[in-house]
């Protein structure tokens, strides 16, 4: 068994092998690997007795279930109206320059992906960004850089 097959089996043991277990299993793989590789989706399909196309079809519907490789840390800057008004463009420009990547890309060392997200639900404290599951409200370009530096230290 490969590492990912073992991981998927573990998750299926926890969440079950019903169709309704599919989302929790997909989410667990993304939580651990940051995206769903082809191998992971095949392993899930085998474990839950579904077709691989069905697993891919479900996964590709959801923004947070990435099927393309992502960095160890995923930065999502909120792009929706209030955050737009309060300056999300400056945050993105600063992070693009700092990480030397364009929006939507992943750094060559695989440590960060920089994405935009639709409304994150912090409109009164915009602009906001989500790094993995951690939320940073009322950020400025300077604060955003600080946050990314902290993550850089934590990421091997």
């Amino acid at each position, binding site marked *: 068994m490969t590492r990912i097959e073992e991981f998927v089996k573990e998750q299926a043991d926890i969440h079950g092998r019903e169709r309704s277990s599919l989302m929790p299993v997909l989410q667990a793989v993304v939580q651990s690997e940051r995206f769903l590789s082809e191998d992971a989706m095949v392993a899930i399909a085998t474990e839950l007795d579904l077709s691989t196309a069905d697993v891919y079809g479900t996964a590709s519907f959801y923004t*947070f*279930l990435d099927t393309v490789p992502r960095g160890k840390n995923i930065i999502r800057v909120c792009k929706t*109206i209030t955050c737009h008004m309060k300056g999300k463009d400056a945050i993105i420009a600063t992070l693009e320059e700092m990480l030397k990547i364009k929006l939507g890309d992943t750094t060559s060392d695989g440590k960060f992906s920089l994405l935009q997200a639709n409304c*994150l639900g912090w409109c009164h404290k915009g602009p906001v960004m989500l790094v993995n*599951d951690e939320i940073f409200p009322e950020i400025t370009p300077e604060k955003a850089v600080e946050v990314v530096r902290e993550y850089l230290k934590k990421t091997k």
Partner: protein
Amino acid sequence: MENKIKKVDLIFEKVDHLAILDKSFKRTSDEIILDVIDSGLRGRGGAGFPTGLKWKFGKNEESDQKYVICNADEGEPGTFKDREILTNVPEKVLSGMALCGKAIGATEGYIYLRAEYNFLLPMLHEKMKEFNKQMKDRNFEFTVFVRSGSGAYVCGEETALMESMEGHRGEPRNKPPFPTQHGYLGQPTSINNVETLVFALMIANHGPKMFKELGTFDSRGSKVFSISGDTPKAGIYELELGMSLEDFVNEFGDGDTKAVQVGGASGFCVARKHFKETLIGFEGIPTGGSMMLFNSSRSMFNILHDYLEFFEEESCGQCSPCRIGCQQLLKGIEAVKKGAKSPLYLNELQKLSETMKIASKCGLGQSVGNPFNSIINNFREEIIY
């Protein structure tokens, strides 16, 4: 000046949630439901279906297995009140679910939490475990589970949410059958917004009278508002329903408010000249709580463009009116702005948005016309020039 905005404190009021449940468990399902019907409470997620009736329909279904779902897939741009409620009074949300369970005869409850709020999960899991034990200690058969979304706005639509929980793409189902008959895993399901469940609990606590004394005939009670945009007082406020938009802007505006988007991106944009006659409630403009204020420095083209980009990305793509309509509305206003299309093309786009309202399968496609037409009708020149 008389303050016409009345602040209320029901949702965040500290109460002994277990005492309310103990009292309620001694009553019959019908008594609980009648109180909710009597209070006039309508769903606080945006659609506004009478909660008591929803519970009654759920109760009337014959089934061995029924479910309660708490819809915490709060994704409407400009709305953040459910996050605040779950953060501050999670016990009240859980208790509201148990109350609904008692009313309709369900033994399992699910919270469907949007992925953007995953940071709440550790706390919610802890509260859930504690609550499940408390229910067990009372010999009341009701267990709560937490499920996560994965970043799809359309999953806030009740049947799409159930599809997602069942492990499918979050594509809305045809209605009828409604979830009260055929919901999660095909079983009768009562799905309620976070805030609605807490109000139901507070009605069980204080009785329906205090609730229906607040608000207006069609919009009883109070509502938690998410206020953002060009305002010095952005945040969460529980206010009595039925205020005029003018009074609202006098309280929350920055003195230069040119428009208010009521009900989030899928709601209506009201221009200053209509503030006075616009009532916030089901008789006027209903809202799931989102109130976004825009001052005169804002371009209404940019605002509409943002909304359309949002809908174009979040449309599930299942039905053509919404999938193609959202794209064409977005492309259309871009073409008019650039001068590639004549300003009269906006009339064609407005007709398209009407078609989307009639022909789309779910609320997403049906409501894109709300912001589109209200912005075009009020600020046509800003879209063109």
